[in-house]
């Protein structure tokens, strides 16, 4: 059997889900026997590959760039997994939604700036008005809630998905877990 192609993506989140993923420790070796990590913040590939079997997406959609990325990822992946609360509920990044991006940028880059107060507008992507979970943009196949989902959750869920076994997610994890 050829190995499955696994990609992990980091949108607007804290990378905690990736840390928890790495927390699988020696179980990662077990996983590496059946999957190849083809794209991830922890590997060197710069461009999302054309055909991916499983894409794990961490983080919410907060900018125009995130929106483009998530659509590209959906087009190129067979199975898309929303990993962690940010991807599923918006979580902490979405706390700015009631206030709006202008107020947030003003507080961060003007009011609290000690020197050269200016809102960055070159190179950085424009923020969306509201931060939204990824399933509001694309179809998501599996939801793994948790902040972050534990290493055990990752291991059980990925093992079940790779082998096509049964998977009872609410028994493993919950929002904020």
């Amino acid at each position: 059997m050829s190995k499955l192609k696994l990609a992990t993506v980091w949108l607007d989140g804290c990378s905690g889900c990736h840390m928890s993923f790495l927390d699988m420790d020696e179980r990662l070796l077990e996983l590496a026997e059946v999957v190849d990590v083809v794209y991830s913040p922890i590997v060197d590939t710069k461009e999302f590959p054309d055909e991916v079997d499983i894409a794990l997406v961490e983080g919410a959609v907060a900018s125009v760039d995130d929106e483009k990325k998530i659509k590209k990822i959906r087009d190129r992946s067979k199975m898309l997994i929303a990993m962690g609360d940010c991807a599923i509920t918006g979580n902490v990044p979405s706390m700015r939604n009631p206030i709006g991006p202008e107020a947030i940028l003003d507080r961060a880059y003007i009011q609290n700036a000690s020197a050269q107060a200016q809102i960055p507008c070159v190179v950085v992507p424009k923020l969306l008005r509201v931060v939204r979970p990824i399933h509001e943009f694309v179809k998501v196949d599996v939801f793994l809630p948790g902040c972050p989902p534990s290493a055990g959750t990752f291991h059980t869920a990925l093992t079940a998905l790779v082998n096509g076994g049964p998977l009872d997610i609410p028994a493993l994890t919950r929002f904020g877990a």
Partner: protein
Amino acid sequence: MSVETDVKTLVIDEQEVSARAGQTILEVARENEINIPTLCHLDGLSDVGACRLCLVEIKGSNKLLPACVATVQEGMEVSTNTERLQKHRRTILELLFAERNHICSVCVSNGHCELQTLGQEQGLTHIRLPYRNPELSVDASHERFTLDHNRCILCTRCVRVCSEIEGAHIWDVMGRGINSLIISDLHQDWGGSACTRCGKCVQVCPTGALFDKSKIGSDHPKYPDFLPYLNLMREAQ
């Protein structure tokens, strides 16, 4: 036994049970270890049938009845966990999550929250509805407690405990529909209200909307179990 009791027999989830007349379906179900999810109900407080999570199906009726306020009838056949009910319960919970800003990961009640637990029990892994993200305030004017409207689900347990048990009636509900808001006194700051600082509302709040300022992180379990005991002691007097 000299006192004659009116006994009703009925069927809940294919289990034959007997009950006293006037008991609610919920009471009888719990006595027989049949779990019906609830949110606005709390042992020791009056019932309002507001959260709609305890809805059950009655054979022969198309209408769903809230188990916390519906009383038992002779020969009733009740189903508490059909596919239809599960679907409605999930949608109701999704509506609650989407209505205000519930961010479990940063909430004082993370791990002790009845809304969060119910979401998990009912198998919610995501909220299909678009989030409303309303702009709501936090009232931290009280010296001991805080009210965070972002986490409030308007179950009115705090209103009832303050009025029925403490007898102070500091809390009430203002506005209607999605604009409803829990207020203290006549919409004054909690700190400046006639609050007796007993803290019962904090203990009965199912989410992190009412919390104790002295607790940090998510170390905030709540203990509403004192209510039935308190009522029993008062009745005995």
